[in-house]
C-alpha cells in the first residue's frame, strides 16, 4: 500500500479523502495549504499526492507545477470541486495523473489512485 499526502484547505474534504484512502489500506498524511503541501512532500516523500485547487495562498495548479519542477516523477491526483473541462485539461497538461471531483466518490477516487500508482513515474 502507498503513502499518500492529502493537500486540501477543507477539513471536511481531508477527512473524507482520508477515510476513502485508509479504507483501501493506504497510509495518509495531510497538509492544509499549498505551501505546507510542498514542504510535506519533501519531508514525507509520499508515493502520491491528492491536491485541491482553490486554496488560500498558493493555487493548486501552482503547487502542482512547483512539485513537478522539483520532482518530475511526482504522482499527483487533483481533487477539486471544479467540474470544468478546461480545468481538467489545464491540470493534466501541468502533469497531474488524474482529476477527480468533489464531493468524492469512493470508487472513482480509488480507481484514480490505483491507476496513478501503477503508471510509470514521468
Amino acid at each position, binding site marked *: 500500500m502507498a503513502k499518500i499526502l492529502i493537500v486540501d*484547505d477543507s477539513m471536511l474534504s481531508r477527512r473524507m479523502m482520508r477515510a476513502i484512502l485508509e479504507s483501501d489500506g493506504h497510509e495518509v498524511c495531510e497538509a492544509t495549504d499549498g505551501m505546507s503541501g510542498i514542504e510535506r512532500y519533501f519531508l514525507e516523500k509520499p508515493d502520491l499526492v491528492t491536491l485541491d485547487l482553490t486554496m*488560500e495562498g498558493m493555487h493548486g495548479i501552482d503547487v502542482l507545477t512547483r512539485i513537478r519542477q522539483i520532482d518530475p516523477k511526482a504522482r499527483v491526483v487533483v481533487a477539486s470541486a471544479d*467540474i470544468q*473541462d*478546461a480545468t481538467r485539461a489545464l491540470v493534466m497538461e501541468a502533469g497531474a495523473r488524474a482529476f477527480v471531483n*468533489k*464531493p*468524492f466518490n469512493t470508487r472513482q477516487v480509488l480507481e484514480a489512485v490505483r491507476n496513478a500508482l501503477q503508471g510509470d513515474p514521468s
Partner: protein
Amino acid sequence: MILTQEQQDALTELINIAFSKTAASLSDLTGHRVLLDVPKVDIIPIEDMSRKLGAFIQGEVATVHQIFTGTLAGDAMLVLNADGASMLVNLLTGQERPGIRVDATGREVLTEIGNILLNACLGMFGNLLKVHVSFSVPRLFVEDLEAMMGTLVVGQEELRYALTVSTNFRLQGNAVEGYLVIVLGVVSLDQLIHAIERWTEHPIIE
C-alpha cells in the same frame, strides 16, 4: 430581463443536472439518500433581490460567497437561513450544534458544501460556454440579509442581474432550504443566455 419559456426550461434543466450530480455524490459520502427538489430558477434585477429573498429568509443568513472571474464573471452565493444552516451542519457531521453561529467544524462544512454546489453550477456553465471560469477561495459570512445585500452592491456598479436558484435538500427526512444566487454583469448574462440558446439546439453535455 425576462427569459422566454424555452430559455427558462433549459436553464432549469441545466442546473437540475448539475445539482443532481452533486446530490448523488453527497449521498455517497453521507451514506444517506439525498433528495433534491427541482430547482426554481429566476433572473431578477439585483435591486429586487432583497425583497425576493426576504420573502423566504428573515434575520441572519449564512452565505458562502465565491467570486468568479474570466469570460463569465460575477459573485456566486449559497444562502441558507439559520435553521437550514445548522440543520445541514448537523446532518453532515452527525452532531447536534444549536444555532447559526456554528463552530469551526460547522463553518468548514458549510464553506465546503457551498464550494461544491457553487462549482457544480458554475462549472456546468463554464463547460456549456466552453470558457474557463476561475474561482476565488470560498468565504462564509453570517449576517442579516440587508447587510449581505449591502456588501454585494457596494463598489460593484457593473453588476445588474441576479440569477436565483432556490433549492430544497432532503437528507434523512429533513428539509434544508437554500438559495443559490449568481450575480452577473450584463455581458456575462448575455453570453450565458446565448450559450443556453445554442445548447437548446444541441442539448448534449459532453
